């Protein structure tokens, strides 16, 4: 029997290869699960299938015919429906308008409002959205309800056209009964020939709904098997891989005195209070799946979160300083290198020198706040050479630099302001191998000189190589903390998935 969709030789690189010679097949009427840890490439794969991203090379067929989508319009025309993880809904439109957004029933001149109402009602009933008027504005719905609208939108494609339904984390905010309803519909549709690709971190759900499961790791499908031959532990093991942890030794290292005391800290984006003690000469890693709350925690520590509660106390030369804002944090030797350097780190259009000195201008200025140009030049040149930033001098625009070198400039910025507590969010994301190695060396050096570091990373290898302790977050809660020598990639992953397995989310 011809497969519904086949993928062969799919290659995609950003700064580094993400998908390597990937091969996957989905049979007609099959519900095919796809699992993998952060950064494994699941979203990239889905985007390529839907034409939202171009592969470097790939051979795709749909029902035996060659398939080359160049846009979402192409994939829509070919019958690919998508319910994305990042909801594709418009807050200011109503439920019915959102559901039928790509296919408004029209009469000669305008939208056929009655048909919209009718069709929307049918779909809402199918996905289990009851007792809500279809003309309700989307912004008034809960996240669970919005997820159901996203699903209804995907299912709005006429049954004679829809060939493949791709679901990316469709039940992450749903209650048990809501998720059951979703699974019931999917199974029904699959029986009448619809193929489904089901991506989820809820491993129990995946094994329950899907007939086949594939595990994506290191850009390649590692395993494809019938779901009734697998357990969730098998899946976790496949996702973590059997590689030896390659780094310098497993023994715990000497850490220094208490530097940062985090006491019952919570915020609007990170509701479960967390306490943690960080020491000098210590690197603490924060691991977890996307959406686990890692960046939110880092921002809360730095004083940047809304509705912040609890305390963050910094011990600086014997005195205790309460960190209550980004300004206080920065002035007291704390550094934050945020996840998105383009929107949160780099001053685009400005020189390397500007970008390097902006957080520590106090040291470069004299009376009345006048900046001393020679001092600025000397300091930025020294830092650039120390970190081996590849550039044509400190007056060059920072936009010309590669991602890795831009990241080095951000590190230089905080070196210049003499920080000793570093919060780093994905410090080597989108960075070439050479720069990554150099950045790791630099971080180790800072640690040996007495710095405290908290590093968020999606790469477990990075964390296991650098850290003294690793804190694992799952679903915006702290679930485990491992000491150096006591962890394994499998244990870390299991902890990261722990709030998604077994018991489903209770709140709607």
């Amino acid at each position, binding site marked *: 029997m011809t497969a519904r969709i086949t993928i062969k030789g799919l290659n995609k690189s950003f700064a580094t290869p993400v998908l390597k010679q990937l091969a996957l097949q989905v049979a007609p009427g099959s519900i095919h699960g796809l699992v993998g840890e952060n950064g494994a490439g699941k979203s990239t794969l889905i985007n390529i299938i839907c034409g939202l991203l171009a592969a470097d090379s790939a051979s795709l067929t749909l029902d035996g015919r060659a398939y080359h989508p160049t846009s979402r319009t192409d994939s829509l025309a070919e019958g690919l429906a998508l319910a994305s993880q990042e909801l594709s809904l418009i807050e200011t439109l109503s439920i019915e308008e959102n559901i039928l957004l790509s296919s408004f029933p029209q009469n000669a001149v305008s939208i056929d409002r009655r048909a919209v109402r009718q069709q929307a009602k049918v779909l809402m009933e199918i996905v289990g959205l009851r007792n809500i008027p279809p003309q309700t504005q989307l912004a008034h719905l809960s996240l669970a309800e919005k997820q159901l609208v996203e699903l209804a939108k995907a299912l709005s494609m006429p049954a004679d056209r829809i060939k493949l339904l791709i679901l990316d984390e469709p039940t992450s905010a749903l209650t048990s009964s809501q998720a059951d309803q979703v699974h019931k519909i999917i199974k029904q549709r699959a029986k009448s020939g619809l193929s489904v690709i089901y991506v989820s971190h809820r491993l129990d759900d995946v094994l329950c709904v899907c007939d086949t499961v594939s595990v994506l790791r290191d850009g390649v499908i590692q395993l494809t098997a019938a779901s009734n031959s697998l357990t969730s532990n098998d899946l976790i093991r496949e996702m973590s891989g059997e590689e030896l942890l390659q780094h310098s030794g497993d023994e715990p290292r000497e850490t220094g005195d208490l530097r940062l005391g985090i006491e019952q800290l919570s915020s609007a984006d990170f509701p479960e209070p967390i306490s943690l003690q960080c020491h000098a000469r210590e690197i603490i890693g924060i691991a977890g799946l996307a959406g686990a709350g890692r960046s939110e925690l880092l921002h809360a520590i*730095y004083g*940047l979160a809304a509705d912040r509660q609890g305390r963050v106390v910094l011990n600086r030369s014997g005195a205790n300083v309460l960190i209550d*804002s*980004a*300004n206080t*944090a*920065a*002035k007291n030797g704390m550094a*934050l290198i*945020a996840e998105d350097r383009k*929107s*949160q*780190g*780099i*001053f*685009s*259009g*400005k*020189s390397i020198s*500007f970008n390097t000195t*902006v*957080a520590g*201008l*106090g040291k470069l*200025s004299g009376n*009345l*706040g*006048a*900046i001393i*140009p020679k001092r600025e030049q000397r300091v930025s040149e020294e830092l650039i050479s120390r970190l081996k930033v590849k550039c044509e001098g400190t*007056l060059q*625009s920072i*936009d010309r630099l590669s991602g890795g070198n831009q990241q080095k400039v951000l590190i230089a*910025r905080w070196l210049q*302001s003499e920080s000793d507590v570093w919060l780093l969010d994905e410090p080597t994301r989108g960075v070439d191998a050479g720069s990554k190695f150099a950045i790791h060396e630099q971080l180790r050096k800072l640690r040996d000189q007495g710095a405290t570091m908290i590093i968020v990373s999606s790469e477990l290898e990075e964390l296991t190589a650098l850290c003294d302790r690793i804190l694992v977050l799952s679903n915006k809660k702290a679930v485990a903390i491992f000491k150096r020598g006591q962890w394994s990639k499998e244990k870390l992953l299991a902890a990261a998935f722990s709030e998604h397995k077994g018991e489903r989310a209770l709140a709607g």
Partner: protein
Amino acid sequence: MFGKLSLLFEEFLIFIALLLLMLFFGLMTESFFTLGTLRTISTQLPALTVVTIGMTLVLISGGIDLSVGSIVALSSGVIGIAFTVFELPLPVAAILGILAGGCAGLINGFLGSYLRLPVFIVTLGMLEAGRGMAYLVTDSQTVYIGASIQALSLPISGIGVSASFLISLGLVVLAQYVLTRTVYGRYLIAIGTNEQAAKISGIRTEPYLMWVLVMSGLLAGLGGLMNAAYLGASDPNAATGLELSAIAAAVIGGTSLMGGRGSIVGAFIGVLIISVLQNGLAQMGVSEPVKRLITGLVIILAVLIDRWRGRQV
């Protein structure tokens, strides 16, 4: 001046544009290169210059101030009434006028920075409210002040230019220095380039965003003083639309409407270009409507060039 090489080059180009424009009018009219022209331009220049300085700083910080024209009129009105009705000495009246501008700027700044209301809307509201206040203060009539205030606007013997002109020139130099050589200026540029990154770098953005609007208000207040000096009176209709000329001058001079980039010296050359343009067209006998059309086209051209510049990064 005081800046990095690329900005210097841009300022040079704009200066060339100014010279070419002057050359053009010199050829097209008989009396362009005369003392009379210089005098006319240099008396009208100071008010627009100081207002443009404030506007440039606000634009660089990522904001905009649409209320400056109304603040000029308000300040001028306050000065006129303080001097004629309350019979306060002229220096005191002048300070009150400038402070009135500062108060308006403070309201703009507080609403825009601490209450996080969009600065465009806030200053648009102040544009209306300020103009209304100017009418209220002057009872909708021109207030005649007299020769004592005109002294500011008349050429000083031996130097040839007025006190207003010298003050505005001095402020251009001072503002350019502050922008390019002080921590305050650097922070304004950082906030205008990337407010989030500036916050993370430890810059407290609220005070800076507020004070730059206060500065704009104070400078517009000073513009009101200079305007009153030029007219010898307080005119509540004065400076209508001045904010647009200020924005145009700033953009011609290399300031980006998106924030983070700009030059005071460039903006001053922009002021000269606009003044030369309007004066030259008048001398050519071009009608008022056509003058406005051409000025408008120049502004659009300036914005297009600004877009092109932005892409060069």
